[in-house]
């Protein structure tokens, strides 16, 4: 009996090893593809004048939709930064999703908003709209005040009011680089028939200095949690997303910054109200819809336009955010399970969705199982200490290698950290994240699964500190 149990544990251990090898090989593949993609993008855009799009007679206008729930600390800075974007024709639609912290009052006061009886097409369902405001001093700004209904619902309200053929989904705590729209719009001009969605890079703004609604100086945050997130974002965007985009199976265009064709988004019913991960949900539905109808399309990722967002600096807030992300992922994978391993959906069904299912959704359980087995062996005195130590070190070093590879890609990008000490700091954090932080994230994600099973579809609360403005820096 004991032998059978021993055999089982050893078999599971071998399985965990294989899993570890496979997941890291995939990540490495994505990193290599990203590097190739970045080089290709950079060489193809050399000597291209983005501002030419300004003179483009048929430049497609964009509606920027910004759902805002209790975004008081950042909202004015964000909206001002959006209004100052370089683009021929756009509107900024801020959707106040039933905030209770005076977000709307701040907007009304700052932009002298007035109520309007604006007529709009109610194409997709959303919670009741209380009022629509326009600003006599900022004609591009429209503010929708509606009953709280979560982000997807707020996006739908914005979609109903949006006037232009493209819309940009943007978080209210985000800051876009001034020319980000000009850059992100390129695929829509180069391949207007096929391009359905384009995403840009999201980076953590903590530690950066904001001046006149723009990131003036890139810096490393002081907060340790924010530093881990800087590394995670670099790895996720310069590694995963770009690699997946290269294989035409990108599933996530971050809700913090993505541009989509409005007609197709409306055809699929807009955002799914109540979706926890509304961004991945929309992209998967777009892919399913277009595949089902055999419509050729592109959903792509551009490594250059940067959107800066504030990362949580408190453990509880970060846990809430990651819990929500993971619940969102599990929810869509369960909802669209028929697409998984379905060759009808091309690389989406055969590669991206299985990848997310096996490695992202199941990954935390496998990792937790590994820790449980480790503890079991340790408790029963069967632990092969040198092997366990070497395996742990290998996991740490492999993780560090992936982070360094992403950092290398970041080095080739235009928005790299200015100081050499920041790189060293990142390398140190690439090691440190494997101790405690990684294990903590595993627990958060396992708990997310448990929460979802219990029917928790909430968003939790996100505590915002606000951007560091130039006059506030020490």
């Amino acid at each position, binding site marked *: 009996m004991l032998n059978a149990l021993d055999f089982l544990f050893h078999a599971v251990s*071998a399985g965990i*090893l294989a899993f570890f090898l496979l997941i890291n090989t995939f990540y490495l593949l994505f990193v290599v593809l990203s590097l190739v993609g970045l080089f290709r993008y950079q*060489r*193809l855009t*050399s*000597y*291209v*004048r983005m*501002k*030419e799009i300004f*003179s*483009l*007679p*048929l430049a497609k206008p964009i509606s920027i939709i910004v759902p805002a729930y209790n975004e008081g600390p950042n909202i004015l800075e964000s909206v001002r930064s959006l209004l100052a974007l370089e683009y021929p024709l756009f509107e900024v639609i801020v959707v106040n999703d039933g905030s209770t912290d005076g977000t709307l009052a701040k907007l009304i006061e700052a932009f002298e908003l*007035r109520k*309007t*009886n*604006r*007529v*709009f*097409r109610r194409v997709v369902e959303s919670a009741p709209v209380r009022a629509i405001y*326009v600003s*006599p001093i900022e*004609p591009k700004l429209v503010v929708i005040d509606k009953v709280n209904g979560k982000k997807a619902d707020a996006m739908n309200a914005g979609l109903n009011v949006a006037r232009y053929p493209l819309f940009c989904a943007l978080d209210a705590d985000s800051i876009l680089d001034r020319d980000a729209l000009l850059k992100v719009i390129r695929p829509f*001009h*180069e*391949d*207007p*028939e*096929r391009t359905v969605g384009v995403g840009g890079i999201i980076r953590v703004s903590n530690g950066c200095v904001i001046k006149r609604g723009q990131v003036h100086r890139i810096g490393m945050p002081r907060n340790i949690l924010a530093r881990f997130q800087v590394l995670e974002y670099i790895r996720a965007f310069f590694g995963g997303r770009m690699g997946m985009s290269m294989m035409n199976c990108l599933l996530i265009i971050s809700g913090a910054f993505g541009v989509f064709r409005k007609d197709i988004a409306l055809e699929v019913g807009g955002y799914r109200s109540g979706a926890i991960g509304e961004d991945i949900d929309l992209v998967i539905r777009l892919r399913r819809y277009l595949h089902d109808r055999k419509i050729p399309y592109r959903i792509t990722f551009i490594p250059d336009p940067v959107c800066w967002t504030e990362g949580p600096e408190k453990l509880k807030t970060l846990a809430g955010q990651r819990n929500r992300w993971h619940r969102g992922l599990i929810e869509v994978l369960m909802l669209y399970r028929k697409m998984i391993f379905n060759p009808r959906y091309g690389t989406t069904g055969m590669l991206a969705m299985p990848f997310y299912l096996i490695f992202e959704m199941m990954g935390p359980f496998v990792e937790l199982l590994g820790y449980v087995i480790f503890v079991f062996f340790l408790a029963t005195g069967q632990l*092969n200490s*040198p*092997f366990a130590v*070497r*395996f742990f*070190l*290998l996991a740490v*070093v*492999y993780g*560090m*290698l992936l982070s*360094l*590879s992403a*950092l*290398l890609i970041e*080095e080739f990008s235009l928005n790299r950290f200015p100081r*050499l000490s920041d*790189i*060293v700091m990142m*390398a140190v954090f690439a090691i440190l994240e494997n101790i405690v932080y990684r294990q903590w994230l595993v627990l958060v994600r396992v708990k997310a699964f448990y929460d979802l099973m219990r029917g928790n579809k909430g968003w939790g609360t996100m505590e915002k500190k606000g951007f560091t403005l130039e006059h506030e820096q020490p």
Partner: protein
Amino acid sequence: MSSALPALISRSLLFTFFFSVALLAFIILRRLVVQRRDAQFQARYLRLEQAVLQAISAGEMPQSLAAALKRRSCRAALTQVLIDFLEIISGRGREVLKVIFEKGLKDECLRDLHSRFFVRRLKATRLVGLFSVLPDESLLLSLLKDKPLIRLAAVHAIAQLPGRESLALVFQAFEQESCPKIHIYTNIIFGAGERVAPFIRACLTKGLPVEKLCLLIELAGAIPLPSLYPDVAGYAGHPNKEVRIKVAKALGKFLTPDSYEILERMADDKEWEVQAQALKAIGNLKNAGALVLLTRGLYSPSWYVRYNARDGLLSLGPLGIKRLEEVSSQKADRFASDMAAMALEEISYSGVW
């Protein structure tokens, strides 16, 4: 297995560790090199910027610039300075920039057009376009047969050159281009202005695919080329909805009074998209006779038709506003009333229509 696995892990650990250390060292070293190179580039850039500025204001080449042109190390910085200046200045200053380019960079640029490296060829082709340097015809033709990106850069370059022949080449390339890529030609054709009218006219008679037809008609309106009115109007009854939309859009830009009758018919099209575009175009004509038609549009079941009808009424000035007031006060059709009220509210905020 039990003995092989730990050994494998040990070897993997060693390899991954050394690889990671090497990668970190590479990143740091590269950063040091890049920082040094950037600092040098910046210093050269600032020096050359001053020199080019001096050349632009004096109209002659300063000694420092003449010397810099001979140094290979200065070429990247000089190219960047010239491109940056090209974006912000116009008129005689641009000619000075072109002279500097021809003296310092043209030869190398023309050499690079033959390079076997794709990026070098692409950059050179783009520079040729930016500074309107004419390579010989055989080279141009070879660029037009190159990879798509170089072909497009070459077309862009050709479009900058004066003369009918260059435009003929552009349109020849446009006709041969595959449909998904034709939108790249938008800026090229638009930038050439009224010179393209005969070429568009010729293309419109050639039975091009719908995508190309749509783009040309839309561009004819965007430039605008009212001389093409009869050619474009001929497509008002085209079976494809997209073509009819573009025709209505173009007619709205031509502002030819004769187009009113055609647009009136298009306002009754079976497709709401065509109706909406036709009403918008009618509004642009500012024809008081359209009052009834535009008012009818306000009662359309389509939101976009109502929206464009309201815009059309606003463009008629006091007459249209009076009609909007009447519609906003009626109770029979709430949708029409709301749209009219919204229009009136917007002008009360902005004070313009």
